[in-house]
């Protein structure tokens, strides 16, 4: 596929093969020498015994992928872990070479495969900005020109001359991202970096990405957050086991991806039970965490379940259970129905949460119930409320509850604290 006038990337039959096990394994030279010395022996043995030499096993991390991306497009790449998303970005940014195929790229490629690459704890914020900028391909004069902007964006102005080992992890992250965000490549490759930092910072990053695309530059973005992909991208690539399953508009591609990746962990021959879920007001985004809302779960049962125990858990990004509920058993007839779960409030920090549903028959998981189905719901629940707890990530905790402080002018002298029992 030759590069047409309006495109910046054209790939044809791109493939990357790795050896199974570790990636390409490195070894010791003495082994290599040993192998070389014993090679004639082994060859002779093969000849006399007719043994076949053991072929190493390979797998294709990326398998004959072809696509074209036009100038100024914001393209999302979705897919499960290990589906080849990062490999594709690594090939496009020339970190690794493809095994097959070719790609033509027009313009300077900047990649954000990992923020903070090259940061050194002993160096100050200022020094790291310059080194990191140079590593990402920014000319020194450009870094100097944007230095104040970068520091302001990261909100670390007071600490620019402090070694970054004294920074909190959040501060380091912000500074690293700020450097990267001020790159001006024609094509920006972004790998999952927006999953870092507090919500306010993420919002600023998203704004920055929108600016980049508005300026006519091309962005290729890998993300697991479908909300982000929907908001930013005009087309989406879905990779599955190294192959390009679908490349089209976000709505269709994400729908197909989600339909294919509904995760059924265990089941008991009832066929599929959970089909999907949504909030009662439509969508999967919770804007106001202080208000009651309803989760609607679309179910279809092949057989009636007389004594159905439903359990739900809400998991955060680290797979910690934030809250879980078990309900009184109900009787469910066979067929399709929507279950309603009413929740008075869910005051959690903004972010992405996964919902996990489990349905048991004849008791629950402890009382010998039979598991009908356990399902990790797709898509995730996106909580998009303004953060009201501590502004620093590491002190904000997992709940998002407002509090106020007052200092009344009149105080009774003598009594500082009264403890009542």
């Amino acid at each position, binding site marked *: 596929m030759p590069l047409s006038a309006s495109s910046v990337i054209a790939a044809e039959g791109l493939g990357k093969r790795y050896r199974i096990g570790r990636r390409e394994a*490195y070894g010791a*030279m003495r082994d290599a020498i040993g192998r070389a010395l014993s090679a004639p022996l082994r060859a002779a043995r093969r000849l006399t015994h007719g043994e076949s030499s053991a072929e190493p096993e390979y797998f294709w991390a990326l398998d004959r992928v072809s696509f074209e991306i036009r100038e100024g497009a914001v393209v999302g790449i979705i897919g499960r872990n290990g589906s080849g998303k990062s490999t594709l970005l690594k090939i496009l940014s*020339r970190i690794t070479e493809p095994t*097959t195929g070719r*790609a033509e790229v027009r313009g300077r*490629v900047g990649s954000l495969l990992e923020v903070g*690459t*090259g940061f050194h704890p002993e160096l100050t914020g200022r020094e790291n900005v310059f080194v990191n900028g140079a590593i990402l391909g920014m000319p020194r004069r450009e870094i100097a020109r944007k230095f104040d902007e970068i520091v302001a964006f990261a909100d670390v102005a007071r600490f620019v001359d402090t070694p970054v080992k004294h920074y909190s992890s959040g501060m380091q992250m912000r500074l690293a991202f700020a450097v990267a965000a001020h790159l001006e490549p024609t094509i920006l490759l972004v790998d999952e970096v927006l999953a870092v930092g507090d919500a306010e910072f993420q919002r600023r990053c998203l704004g920055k990405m929108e600016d980049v695309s508005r300026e006519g530059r091309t962005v290729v973005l890998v993300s697991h957050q479908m909300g982000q992909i929907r908001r930013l991208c005009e087309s989406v690539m879905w990779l599955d086991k190294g192959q390009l399953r679908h490349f089209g508009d976000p709505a269709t591609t994400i729908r197909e991806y989600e339909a294919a990746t509904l995760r059924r962990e265990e089941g008991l021959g009832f066929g599929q039970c959970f089909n999907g879920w949504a909030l009662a007001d439509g969508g999967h985004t919770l804007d106001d965490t202080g208000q009651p809302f309803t989760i609607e779960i679309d179910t279809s049962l092949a057989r009636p379940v007389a004594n159905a125990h439903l359990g739900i858990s809400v998991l955060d990004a680290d797979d910690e259970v934030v809250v879980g509920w078990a309900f009184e058993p109900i009787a469910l007839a066979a067929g399709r129905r929507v279950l309603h779960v009413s929740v008075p409030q869910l005051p959690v920090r903004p972010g992405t949460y996964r919902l996990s549903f489990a349905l048991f028959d004849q008791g629950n998981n402890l009382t010998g119930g039979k598991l009908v189905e356990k399902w990790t719901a797709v898509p995730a629940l996106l909580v998009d409320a303004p953060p009201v707890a501590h502004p620093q990530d590491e002190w904000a905790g997992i709940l998002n509850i407002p509090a106020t402080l007052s200092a009344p002018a009149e105080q009774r002298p003598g009594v500082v604290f009264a403890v009542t029992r």
Partner: protein
Amino acid sequence: MQVIAPASGWVPVQLGEVWQFRELLAFLVWREVKIRYKQTTLGVAWAILQPCFTMVVFSVFFGRIGHIPSDGLPYPVFAFSALVPWQLFAFALAESSNSVVANQRLVTKVYFPRVIMPMAAVGVGLVDFCLSLGVLLGLMAFYRVVPSTAIWTLPVWTLLAVTTALAVGVWLSALNVRYRDIRYTLPFLTQVWLFATPVAYPSSLVPEAWRSMYALNPMVGVIDGFRWALLGRAQAPPMTVAVSAAAMLALLTLGLFYFRRTERTFADVI
């Protein structure tokens, strides 16, 4: 427009691209220098102490006890004038051989011509070198040795030492990615190399007939050149210098091609 496609066999060395990334090279050198002097409390002292101790040991054992000739110079000056460029070479060689593996995170996350890494590592040694060169001049003043008029050629010999280290460094840094035991062979290699180089003894001890073969070791040209430039002794015959420079160039050219050939798998192997 850039074409990304699998390459096979030997590919050209793209020095033009290295030139494009010269600022990164400068920043990496600067970063290493900063870190080196921030982390060690002895800092500057360390760069000077090491060759000084070696000089004392050499002076006692080779000079006093072994009665090794020193071209009519005080033995400490004689030894130290060779130890200064030798330390530069040995340090640059060690750093550059380890450079690619040490920058693992960069290799797997960002693209730039990989040869920048051994190059930057070699550059770092120059700071230590300048310090110990200062000590050498002080030592010469102490022994009242007047520098020769050829002192202006010093940068040439320094460059030859650095490029020799780079020539071996590109080989070893690339090999080190695939074979991690390179690191263990390095001290041995450096030690053998030290004795094959006229550091503790003058090159005039080597029989005339063997001289041009001896000069195939590029460090012979470096040390003789250094002593000639500073002390006006152990003249660097044009033949020795030419052979050493040619050997270095051959090693460097082949090394760069080997590096290019293997660098494209660095990110997969490392």
